[in-house]
């Protein structure tokens, strides 16, 4: 008798499995949507990195075209119009005499370090590249 009653008056509502599936679906969607801004930030950050790398490359090639004597020691600001494309972007060029550990033979060599930094959200990112330029070297 109970068996027939269940079929004559079917219960309406949602089964447990349906509810669980719906909840898991919605939660996956929410997680995806929440990570969109993160992904966009990552893409922007990598674009900035590429730009910083280009700026540094150009600066080093420009320095190589100068004659060795004209490379004045000390730190100077990097001047490049593309720095304005980076948020809070600024760059420095450091020219120093090669230190004793790297240049053990007192050869006429200068160490160039070019550094570009910018702000990614609240964090500061920076890229730096070093190379050596010597008298009678590649630029001769």
């Amino acid at each position: 008798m109970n068996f027939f009653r269940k079929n004559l008056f079917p219960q309406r509502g949602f089964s447990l499995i349906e509810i669980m599936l719906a909840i898991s679906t919605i939660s996956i969607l929410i997680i995806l949507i929440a990570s969109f801004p993160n992904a966009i930030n990552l893409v922007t950050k990598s674009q900035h990195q590429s730009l910083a790398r280009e700026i540094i490359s150009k600066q080093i090639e420009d320095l190589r075209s100068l004659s060795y004597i004209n490379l004045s020691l000390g730190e100077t600001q990097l001047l490049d119009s593309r720095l304005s494309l980076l948020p809070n972007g600024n760059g420095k060029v450091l020219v120093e005499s090669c230190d004793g550990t790297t240049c053990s033979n007192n050869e006429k060599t200068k160490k160039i370090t070019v550094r570009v930094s910018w702000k990614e959200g609240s964090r500061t990112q920076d890229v730096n590249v070093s190379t050596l330029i010597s008298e009678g070297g590649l630029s001769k």
Partner: protein
Amino acid sequence: MKIHQTQGQTILILLLVMSVALALGVSIIQRSLTDVATSTKVEQSTRAFYTAEAGIERALTGDSTGVTFSDNNSQAIVFDSGLLPAQSTQEGQAGQALEYPPVSKEDIAQVWLANPSTNPMAPHYRQSSLDIYWGEQNINTTDSDNMPAIAIVLIYEDQGEYKASRFYLDSDFRRIESNGFRDATIGSGSCGNISIETSMGPGRRFYCKYTLTDLPLSMILLRARMLYNKSNQPFAVGPKCVNDDPDYPNDCSLPPQARVITSIGVSGETERRVQLFKLDKVVPPYFDYAIFSAGEISK
């Protein structure tokens, strides 16, 4: 008896929407991850390249021990070949052939046959034959535009006077009638599968080889100009031991005159390799015009 079946499309719609959104989201995240990984690698690659250049700069000042930059975690390992080409170790045997980096059209490759480091220049190579190698091996023989020819000027000394001898070699026999060059595919030459060891290493491949014979004594300099080629093609000169000079039967090596410096820069996971071919002494570019001019050259 009716069996009630549950009806409903909600879950189906939800599943479809979810799969579309999932596909979209996953592709966006994957692209951004790849982007980040690529730009990091490119940045490291740039650093590695400039570190490799730094290694070469140091090697040019005489120190080939390499470079380490501790502040950005990159270093360069440098290999200096020493003076090339290598001299022969046994009497009567040929020394190493000297190979130039690929030569472009109308560009000049210069090979010393007397020793440029001595003053006055001491004769060094004393054979009456010389092997010339040129052209890239897998050349398309139907494209006559890229098949290279060589115009060689050989400077030698004859009783206190400097003289020039000229040779013109063509790898394409179809041009011989119009340009009057020597056919490098027959006689003292052959074109096809040439592979020798040179200053750049073993198993170096060329398209043609030609043996110049009956050359004068006291040779000083060989200047070769590559013609007709569209792409940069290799060029090498090798000793050919005939040992027929009665006074110097065994001097079968080209004089040491060049150096190859290889620098491998490493930063993070990336590596960049820079190679420099250096000739210590080269005659100035207007030298060719001096040979042909009737009067004096004023620089």
